[in-house]
């Protein structure tokens, strides 16, 4: 790892985004609009908004970062810039950390806006600290970055890359407890949801909403999400090869 190269990569990725203000706006505004919509959908059922809103605070950063990272790294692979970078003195870890830092920074802003809006304006009833919500959102964003990076290796085109979103993330959204509590599903599905990382992303959010202070379950959820992100990142690193056929 080389700090200069990592920071240069992060700055480069942010500069690329800087030339694309529409993407930034979409990343930041869309979650807020959807959460507001959700609030009025559940106008009569405040408890439902508390649980669904919390779950979505965990899901949004994951989905957004997954999409952005998978497309960005796919572009890097297909434009020849990845091959060029890997023929230069750039470590794979520098590249990955650079991406994680840049998109992580965007995720912080996105999560801060979404959390702030939900707690302050939409009246989400949070027992724990809003900072913990932010922390989980950030971990979820990193998971999205790592998964996006990993699947981009299996996409040959941007068409394929966007299809990985429904393929990889939608099943997790269905099973994460957003629609039906995880324990109330068929045992087989509960078991499946137990091994999917998004379940822990959403559980972590619920812990903060329902409990004051840091619970053991919260720590476990956060650790699982972070562990899965690191695992996906390591697998993603293995797909970056200096020599290709």
């Amino acid at each position, binding site marked *: 790892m080389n700090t*200069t*190269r990592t920071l*240069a*990569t992060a*700055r*480069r990725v942010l*500069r*690329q985004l800087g*030339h*694309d203000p529409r993407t930034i706006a979409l990343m930041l505004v869309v979650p807020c609009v959807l959460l507001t919509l959700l609030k009025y959908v559940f106008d009569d059922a405040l408890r439902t908004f508390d649980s669904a809103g919390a779950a979505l605070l965990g899901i949004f950063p994951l989905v957004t970062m997954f999409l952005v990272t998978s497309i960005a790294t796919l572009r890097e692979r297909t*434009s*020849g*810039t990845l*091959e*060029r*970078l*890997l*023929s*230069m*003195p*750039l470590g794979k870890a520098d590249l990955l950390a650079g991406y994680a830092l840049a998109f992580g920074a965007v995720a912080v802003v996105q999560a801060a806006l979404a959390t702030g809006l939900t707690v302050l304006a939409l009246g989400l009833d949070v027992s724990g600290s809003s900072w913990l919500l932010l922390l989980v959102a950030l971990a979820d964003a990193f998971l999205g970055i790592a998964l996006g990076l990993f699947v981009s290796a299996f996409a040959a085109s941007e068409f394929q890359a966007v299809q990985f979103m429904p393929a990889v993330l939608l099943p997790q959204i269905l099973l994460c407890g957003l629609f039906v509590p995880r324990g109330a599903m068929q045992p087989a599905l509960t078991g499946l949801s137990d091994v999917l990382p998004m379940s822990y992303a959403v559980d972590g959010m619920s812990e903060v909403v329902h409990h004051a202070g840091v619970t053991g379950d919260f720590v476990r959820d956060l650790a699982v999400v972070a562990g899965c992100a690191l695992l996906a990142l390591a697998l993603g690193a293995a797909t970056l*090869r*200096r*020599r*290709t*056929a």
Partner: protein
Amino acid sequence: MMNKHGPAIEATALSVRRGSRTVLDDLRFAVPPGRITGLLGPSGCGKSTLMRAIVGSQARVAGTLDVLGRPAGHRDLRARVGYVTQAPSVYTDLTARQNLDYYAAVLGIPRRERATHVQEALHDVDLTGHADALAGNLSGGQRGRVSLAVALLGAPELLVLDEPTVGLDPVLRRDLWQLFHRLAADRGTTLLVSSHVMDEAERCHRLLLLREGRLLADDTPEALRERTGATTVEDAFLHLVDEADRGAAAHAPAGSPAPPTVRKAAS
């Protein structure tokens, strides 16, 4: 450290396979330091594969391939070899200057020197007037020159350029060749330049002629013309192709009319 005496690139029994196909077959050649060596041959003959092998991006390389005294792809070579792929490898959503600034950082050029290096590279490829335009908004030729400027950063000892003049107008092509000669003469840079436009061969000090993964010739343009009795390198190449096709024993009659081939630059 520059390897002053030995060849800049030395290949022995170099082969590359892709799937079941042999892309490069048992190549042996040496590229002298501080000179411009042209790598010529028709599209699909293995030029790009050979260049990728030299910069260490190509998988399944067999045989010996030494670059600046190290095995090709050695980590010490990564800052000493500049490489330009056929398609411009730059970020289209960054300006030319931002592209160069990033690659300069990756090459390890200290922050306070970066702006100077970037400006010099932009000047070398005559893009100072477009430095702050998005690479995606530049013309194809201009984007190619941004990609070339990236390879010039940090004054690498070896430049591997894959068809750097494709699609450029005659004036720019002349300017770039003047730049290549300046780099070789003033900085002692070794250049390996591929092209399928044979008239560019006359501008090189040495030539490697490649056809279907095999080396047809490794010589100076003058010696090639002399040996084949041809007036241009293009005729010499065609002569060698015919000769190779007829087998080693056959000798093509001098002055046999070369087939009327027009080799256009790929658009």
